[in-house]
């Protein structure tokens, strides 16, 4: 522990113990506790390190006027300190434990009503219960009854904490009881030992003594479970709910002896509960039943017949809405048992069967005696929509079940979803067989449409889906064309389209009519009134360009946009979208254009007139757009152009398109690094990084920026995770490197890096700093062998302007004093609006790199900006300062608030 902290701690304890003084805010206690927990986990003993804590605890406990927050903190702190056996022993010797956890004491003091204290009590005990001694203490103090009572506490947090505490006791000490139990063969015991050694690393040493205590606890809890599981009256539902949650928690993790014991106790009650059919309890009950079933699985043991029967009866409860939720729960929890899965699948498919009139369940529906009640339920609009949505959400899962389980071929489910989409959009069909009274509930329902589209999207990979491609595209185009589709529905339709195009190996499946319809609808949606729709449309065009398909089977791949839209549709629409009034649409259009053009860039095709126009429009956006998103997208556009281009041709080759690209890159670097948006600047630095990679990747000692700092990524930093594949070229002559450096400097890479370095946004500074370090290590390493290189490099220089970042850099380089007078003049000049170019300084690149003290700067930048304010020391100081401020006689009330609201 920090020495300074140790010195401060006693006075902090004093502040906390003094009920007259207050702490800065309630999070500071939590932070303090976090710090102590960290110390304990690191293996230190709190009592040894800070003996003052003991005094603190006994003072606080005896002062009933203490703030409940501080009391709660004290309880938890005590638990933390008693978590080790030594700590426990010491605390008990001082008879602190009995006082701290003495329920009666708190109740008499009237403090028990505060939920804050109750939760502190539970959490304190929970931290303490890490060893058998603690368990003995727990049992002897007879806390179990109180804890069970807290399980139904009025405060949800307390109730949940109590639940977790109960589970913790039973699960943590369960090895104790297994040691005492007999009649298990060796093999199983071995397995269990392995199992336990994995899960319960910190399991305490077992003694027979604790085993008895543990049995007492188990007995107490299971008695309680058995008695209270069935709600006596409707108001007691809460208790049953809590118990079911606890049971699910226990059964999922308990080892066989405990699990068997629990099941033996509660199965009767569970059976009764299932029969009672209380719909609020259906889902938690299902969780318990599934946990009971699956926990039997891994041992290779057949689950108890009664447990299996429970599951069967869960799947025959009478209320259709509950039943469908139970079935969905079974499917989503990944239960693998053919009989029940098949049953669940039938339950889930029934509403779809009824609405669409498709015989998904085969003709033998007599088995589904609840069909009538389901139809009744579906006639009410709200329950119809919710049940249909549950079905739809589960359809992808259903198609994944083994074919023996499925009552129909998976492709029929795709048909059903398509048909539901058709019904829901109100498209009439004469050969319609579904129940019309039910159907009208789903007509026009946006919720059903969204769920069905999601389901359809996920169904693209189901077996036999290919047969349905044409049908799917027809309905999707109808949805895209429907004037009443809301923006989300349209967006989902586009997504589904992209997914399904992905499985379509052969575009000849899509008729010319469909293609024509698609072109028309995309053109129309690109002019939609709602910007969300225009945005989705533009995005769709981009995604479509990214999908590769073959026009007819066996032919070469081409991008889907060209194949479907005929090539002449996408680019003009996207060009138009660059003028959109909504910045998101402009940004999406730029990225979509990049995706659309990638193919032609990769082929090295010469730039068309159209593309040149686009580029000049993009540069215009970069310099003039008032919103950040389009400007970010522009930089990304040039990044992907540069990437596609450099993967193709060596950088030195000077085709017209290369020189045009480089000319643009220069503009992007200078404008992007001067942007107001930090993300634009970071993207610009990424472009700079690519240029560095290209220039020096062949040079020995060059680490690619992307390799060097991937591990160090800061959460706020935006670094794309694309893997760059750059063209490398052989030969590492000094002159080569020198000319490369000169080239890079001339392009403005170095200026961009330097301006990034002094940027006020940390991610920008960090990125620039890292790149500069890499550059320094490449061109002027501090090793002797590289001296010749360095000497040669010294000749490469760059210009620092006498204003803005240039001035900052000059200041850092310490050239300020020499040129103070000149800088003053330049400042005056720039003030008067004159061009500051005349005051620029020319410096050697190497010299700059060496003198900037980049490593120290990197250290500063790497630390997160609040590191100073987050240390334990500052926390302790804060507490002291706040209390001082409060006790200061001059302090006016409300001062604290002013301090808080900077």
């Amino acid at each position: 522990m920090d020495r300074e902290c140790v010195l401060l701690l006693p006075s902090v304890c004093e502040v906390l113990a003094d009920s007259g003084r207050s702490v800065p805010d309630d999070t500071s206690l939590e932070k303090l506790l976090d710090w102590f927990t960290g110390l304990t986990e690191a293996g230190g003993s709190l009592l040894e390190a800070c003996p003052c804590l003991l005094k603190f605890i006994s003072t606080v406990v005896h002062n009933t006027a203490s703030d409940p927050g501080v009391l709660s903190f004290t309880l938890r702190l005590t638990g933390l300190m008693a978590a080790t056996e030594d700590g426990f022993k010491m605390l008990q010797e001082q008879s602190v434990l009995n006082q701290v956890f003495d329920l009666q004491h708190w109740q008499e003091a009237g403090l028990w009503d505060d939920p804050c204290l109750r939760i502190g009590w539970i959490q304190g005990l929970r931290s303490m219960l890490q060893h058998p001694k603690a368990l003995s203490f727990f049992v002897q103090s007879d806390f179990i009854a109180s804890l069970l009572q807290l399980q139904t506490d009025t405060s949800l947090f307390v109730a949940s904490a109590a639940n977790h505490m109960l589970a913790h006791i039973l699960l943590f000490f369960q090895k104790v009881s297994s040691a005492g139990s007999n009649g298990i063969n060796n093999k199983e015991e071995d397995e269990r030992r392995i199992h336990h050694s994995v899960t319960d690393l910190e399991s305490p040493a077992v003694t027979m003594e604790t085993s008895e205590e543990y049995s007492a606890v188990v007995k107490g809890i299971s008695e309680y479970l058995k008695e209270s599981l069935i709600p006596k009256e409707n108001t007691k539902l809460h208790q049953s709910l809590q118990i079911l949650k606890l049971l699910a928690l226990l059964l999922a993790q308990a080892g066989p002896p405990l699990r068997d014991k629990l099941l033996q106790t509660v199965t009767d009650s569970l059976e009764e509960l299932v029969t009672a059919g209380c719909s609020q309890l259906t889902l938690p009950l299902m969780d318990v039943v599934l946990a009971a079933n699956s926990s039997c699985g891994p041992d290779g043991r057949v689950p108890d017949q009664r447990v299996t029967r429970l599951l069967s009866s869960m799947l025959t409860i009478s209320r259709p809405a509950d039943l469908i939720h139970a079935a969905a729960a079974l499917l989503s929890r990944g239960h693998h048992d053919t009989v029940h899965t098949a049953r669940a699948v039938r339950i889930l498919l029934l509403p779809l069967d009824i609405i669409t009139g498709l015989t998904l369940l085969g003709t033998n529906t007599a088995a589904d005696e609840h069909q009538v009640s389901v139809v009744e339920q579906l006639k009410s609009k709200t329950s119809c929509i919710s049940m249909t949505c549950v079905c739809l959400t589960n359809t992808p899962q259903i198609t994944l079940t083994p074919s023996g389980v499925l009552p129909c071929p998976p492709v029929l489910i795709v048909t059903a979803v398509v048909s539901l989409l058709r019904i829901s959009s109100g498209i009439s069909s004469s050969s319609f067989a579904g129940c019309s009274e039910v159907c009208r509930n789903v007509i026009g329902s946006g919720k059903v449409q969204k769920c069905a589209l999601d389901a359809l999207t996920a169904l693209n990979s189901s077996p036999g889906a290919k047969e349905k491609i044409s049908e799917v595209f027809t309905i999707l185009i109808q949805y895209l064309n429907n004037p009443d589709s809301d923006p989300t529905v349209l967006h989902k339709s586009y997504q589904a389209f992209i997914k399904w195009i992905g499985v379509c190996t052969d575009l000849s499946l899509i008729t010319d009519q469909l293609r024509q319809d698609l072109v028309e609808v995309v053109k129309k949606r690109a002019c939609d009134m709602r910007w969300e729709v225009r945005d989705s449309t533009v995005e769709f065009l981009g995604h479509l360009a990214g999908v590769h398909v073959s026009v007819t089977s066996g032919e070469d791949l081409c991008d889907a946009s060209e194949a479907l839209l005929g090539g002449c549709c996408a680019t003009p629409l996207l060009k138009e979208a660059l003028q959109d009034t909504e910045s998101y649409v402009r940004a999406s259009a730029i990225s979509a254009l990049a995706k659309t053009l990638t193919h032609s860039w990769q082929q090295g095709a010469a730039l068309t007139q159209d593309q040149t126009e686009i580029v000049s429009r993009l540069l215009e956006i970069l310099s003039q757009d008032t919103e950040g998103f389009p400007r970010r997208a522009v930089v990304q556009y040039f990044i992907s152009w540069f990437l596609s281009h450099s993967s193709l041709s060596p950088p030195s080759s000077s085709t017209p398109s290369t020189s045009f690209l480089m000319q643009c890159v220069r503009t992007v670097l200078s404008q992007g690094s001067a942007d107001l948006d930090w993300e634009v600047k970071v993207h610009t630095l990424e472009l700079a990084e690519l240029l560095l990679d290209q220039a020096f990747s062949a040079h020995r000692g060059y680490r690619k920026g992307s390799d060097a700092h991937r591990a160090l990524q800061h959460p706020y930093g935006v670094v794309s995770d694309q893997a760059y594949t750059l063209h490398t070229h052989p030969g590492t002559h000094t002159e080569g490197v020198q000319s490369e450096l000169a080239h890079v400097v001339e392009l403005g890479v170095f200026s961009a890096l330097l301006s990034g370095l002094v940027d006020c946004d940390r991610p920008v500074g960090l990125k620039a700093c890292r790149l500069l370090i890499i550059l320094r290590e490449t061109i002027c390493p501090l090793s002797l062998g590289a001296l010749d290189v360095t000497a040669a490099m010294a000749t490469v220089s760059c210009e620092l302007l006498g204003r803005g970042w240039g001035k900052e850099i000059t200041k850092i380089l310490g050239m300020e004093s020499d040129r103070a007078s000149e800088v003053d003049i330049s400042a005056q000049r720039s003030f008067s609006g004159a061009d500051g170019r005349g005051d620029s300084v020319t410096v050697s690149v190497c010299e700059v790199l060496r003198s900037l003290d980049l490593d120290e700067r990197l250290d500063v930048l790497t630390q997160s900006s609040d590191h100073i304010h987050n240390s334990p020391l500052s926390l302790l100081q804060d507490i002291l300062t706040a209390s001082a401020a409060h006790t200061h006689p001059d302090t006016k009330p409300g001062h604290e608030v002013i301090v808080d609201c900077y």
Partner: protein
Amino acid sequence: MKLYCLSGHPTLPCNVLKFKSTTIMLDCGLDTTSVLNFLPLPLVHSPRLSKLPSWVSKDGTINLEKELKECAGRVFVDSQPEFCLPERELLDLSTIDVILISNYHCMMALPYITEHTGFTGTVYATEPTLQIGRLLMEELVNFMERVPKAQSATCWKNKEIQRMLPGPLKDAVDVWTWKRSYSMQEVNSALSKVQLVGYSQKVELFGAVQVSPLSSGYSLGSSNWIIQSHHEKVAYVSGSSLLTTHPQPMDQSSLKNSDVLILTGLTQMPTANPDGMLGEFCSNLAMTIRAGGNVLVPCYSSGVIYDLLECLYQFIESANLGTTPFYFISPVANSSLEFSQIFAEWLCHNKQSKVYLPEPPFPHAELIQTNKLKHYPSIHGDFSSEFRQPCVVFTGHPSLRFGDVVHFMELWGKSSLNTIIFTEPDFSYLDALAPYQPLAMKCVYCPIDTRLNFHQVSKLLKEVQPLHVVCPEQYTQPPLTQSHRSDLMLELQPPPMPYRRCSVLNLPFRRRYERVYILPELANSLVPSEIKPGVSMATVSAVLHSKDNKHTLQSVPKPPPAPPSKKRKRVMEEPPVVLAPKPLLSGAVPLEAFLVTLQKAEDTLIQLEEDGTHIVCDNNEPLRTTLRDLVLRFLQKL
């Protein structure tokens, strides 16, 4: 109470309500779909139309060379277009006391009724309804009179011949009653009979009933009507809307507790949501303009066009259409745009408040100021010199049979770059386009009908709780083309009473009361005695005076003082033979039991005649015998 249904068109209704002693016509809509059977009237000579072949029946026996022309496989009447009028044979229209108009679309048959049937009553309408209705009639007359056609085809109407005709002509009904357009003089005369009313203003009709218009939210000045006597209430719901477009919002609460609700004017496009259609309209418009084409919007000169212009006002900036000219061509374009700005009190709150800023309530004023929207009375004159393409043209008539739109159809129909966007729901776009086939122009159908849809109307009815609902039969079953859409019909309990053209419905009323006034002096003379807390009774002898459907109880006039008798003394000598007036009833009425029977209010009839007495008492034999015994006892006493 009876309802005579003179029109079968659900959105262009014409019904007559006989209520108490009044005869009230509810709306007089003109079914203009009949004009679709006629050839368009071109503004300038059209070689294409004039060269159309005459229709000859297959066997060659019928040859109406001058009357019927064939175009793209369909037969059209080559004559001045004619309209299908409301039924005039069902009842004597001269007996109509008043006509209530709900909105300007539902008054287009007014001149036919007021000028040619001997009508002598009054027409009630709101001011915007009258003014915009006048504009629409003026426009119609103008469209017709601008291109006079000498001939009037009548031969094809011969029943024998009509039966032989193909297609829709054969099935056209009542063709003999179809009439040509009225003249401006008739319009003026008809409109002179209109008396203006304001929302919620109560108008007494002969003291028998009171009528009052309520805002219906559909168009400027559009109204629903409440027709009520003291004890009965009939609500007439015509074109209404819950959308927050320009008009004042619909007044729903006043419709509550009506005995009968006559429901007409629901949306003609139940599957087309107006918002979606508006979006469709804008995107198709933008798409066409971007591709360098022109957009033609056939529309009425008032109504949805205000909303379209407002929507475009916001849209043109975002779609970069700022430089595209918008033209509005109609003989009444100027008045329509200006009228809309001055009816502030009839607008929705949002627009009303703009007037106080002061700002024009509709943004089309700004479009005109900035020269983005230009309006012309016709394609002749200034328009031709300023016409610039690509552009957007709003013009009538939506049937494409007359008006300036005919010219643009001929002009732009051949290019696939151009688009025609239908926004009015009154005409089937395929029928409207039939005489222009083959057509290269793109067609987009986005009918914008803001009237109530079935979902909204069922919600409304649930709230206002009428005892009975009367509606056109079309509303009681799903649309023919979408028979599975059971959500597109009215489902009510009790089921609505359907009507069709020429139906006469007896409207059910369970009970009739009448209000009678007691003159103050008579009331003063009454001596009520409280027979139960809150219930007092008094016997009244009075004279019932009825005039103008108003009933008043007056004191019995004192008998004129007896003429002075000449006999003096003798009188005293002979005591009068006249017995002291005998009370008719004596004894006490058992109060509680009596009140119970009063409240039970069973219909019992005691008929006293010279030679017999009948006691009629439905299904209550004990009561009947008791009454009989009582009556017998009294009779014996007398």
